[in-house]
């Protein structure tokens, strides 16, 4: 499985998650967003992607949704309800599925 972008080929799993996390770039993110039917990554999309990547770099796993929502509350000065609403407006299929995939994070497995 995989895709080609600007003359380079990228390997993905069956659901389109990057296999090699070092393959990620902003262009790859835009491509993956397109496959998720998010045509345009705006500033708020990027804030979330950047938070996910930063967290992953430090902890080698995606953050719990709770942590992600708290980060949005802080960064965007929102209430919990509004932060959660915004997250699902930006990534309608859910942060775990869409945002993590676009940010180049692997899919968690186990009792999840």
């Amino acid at each position, binding site marked *: 499985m995989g895709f080609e972008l600007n003359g380079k080929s990228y390997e993905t*799993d069956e659901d389109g998650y990057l296999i090699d996390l070092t393959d990620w770039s902003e262009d790859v993110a835009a491509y993956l967003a397109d496959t998720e039917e998010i045509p345009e990554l705006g500033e708020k999309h990027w804030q979330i992607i950047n938070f996910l990547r930063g967290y992953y770099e430090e902890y080698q*796993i995606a953050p*719990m949704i709770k942590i992600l929502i708290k980060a949005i509350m802080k960064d965007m000065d929102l209430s*919990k309800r509004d932060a959660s609403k915004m997250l699902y407006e930006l990534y309608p299929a859910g942060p775990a599925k869409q945002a993590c995939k676009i940010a180049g994070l692997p899919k*968690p*497995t186990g*009792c*999840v």
Partner: protein
Amino acid sequence: MSKMLQPDELIKDIQETPSLMTGKAPAKDWMDTPAEFKPGNWAYSAKTKATDALGMPNSRDWSPADEDWKLPEDWKEIISNGFRERLDKFRSFKVFMDICVRCGACADKCHFFLGSGDPKNMPVLRAELLRSIYRNDYTIAGKLLKKFAGARPLTMDVVKEWFLYFFQCTECRRCYVFCPYGNETAEITMLARELLNLVGININWIMDPVANCNRTGNHLGIEPHTFKRVIETLCEDIKDITGVTINPPFNKKGAEILFITPSGDVFADPGVYTMMGYLMLFEHIGLDYTLSTYASEGGNFGLFTSNEIMKKLNGKMYHEAERLGVKWILGGECGHMWRVVNQYMDTMNGPADFLEEPVSPITGTKFENAKSTKMVHIMEFTADLIKHNKLKLDPSRNDHLNVTFHDSCNPARAMGLLDEPRYVINSVCNNFHEMPENTIREQTYCCGAGSGLNTEEIMDVRMRGALPRASALKYVEEKHDVNMLACVCAIDRATLLALTQYWTPDVEVAGVTEMVANALVMEGENEVRDMDLREEPYLGVEED
């Protein structure tokens, strides 16, 4: 990923295809009906990253959707030898191969059969997929009479059929409850998966957690610093919600008790609220315990792989208990961990003589049932605390919940944990309603995705298998306005959430200990406790 049918479309499909409900039967004999692979009914194969890390045989890139499964040239010999070895090694396996009289008592007891109508999902026929080969190779009648004696030779089509149907069994053991001979279809599935593993046939949703657990001590691959940080984050939330400060101990040598729970509870919603519940409970009673960043997993996906891997992953809990010098182990709300601990640990890694027979330091109760395994279930522990009035509880704090309880297959059928969770729920909640009696306790219906099948690409199979449980749930939702499905298993907390979102969207899912913590009146808590652990306001509290 395949497009999932809408609930009404799925119901229509079940009603129109051959099934128990329609009374229609397939036209051809089962042996002449090859396994049909279609999107949504098979799980992705294991990635080499996982199988290489574990040194599994025939690690390679392959897909069940391909014609060629890239098996070793002598695959038939490997499986045959593996079959013979296991018949010699496990007397139970030999008995299960011989003893079935095909009475059919199990046939309509399987959630996958009820949801799919596929005869190969009748437990009797699922076992027959293996028995037919056994008869062919190991019985005189089978050797002489072949098909007339229910025998058939091992072919690639048989292997593919095994893959499809032994990964369409959740090892829930409901069929076993009804079998007059005590045939264990779950163990038949376990051994079939072992045989498949010998030639490199396995699924990623099982092998990736196994490889992670082998490397980091938990299925999710959470490293020590992350584990610690996540728990600290949960403690910050507890402080925000209740005003109580908790500093849980990590890897503390000489603690009295080691607490182990599934790693899903330190990562996924709604399991994290159960984790917060444990932390609050232990603080409330002043328990001398420790968490471990190494034995950071209660679950054991080795159970779904092979005896050897199950043994290895189970071993880490006991090694860590020995290293830390604790007296005994307290286990969290996990499902299959208790099957491993209660039914296999003692002869696999036991006896754990370096630990002491568990005694509650708070009540003095001796847990006789855990004398040998040295591991006590959190529900037994909590029920005992409540019985001795050691918890200060205000059940009205759960008045916003109308609760029902899903008996998780393994605690219910593999350790008989039936009354303790109910006693605890009734002590911490005022509104509890049982689902119909043939769907609970020993007869509980599976969540539809246990035994490592909680992966998304087989959502069609999962939602079919979830239908019996969901129907019982819908019944109490309509009758009693049930809005909370409680359970004591981390796989359940993930899979029941998918079930409710699909079949009963207004019902939420929670671990029992989350509700215990909601009701706990903690020392030093805020004067007004106005919200539950999910930060939802309690009844009677006005929202801003």
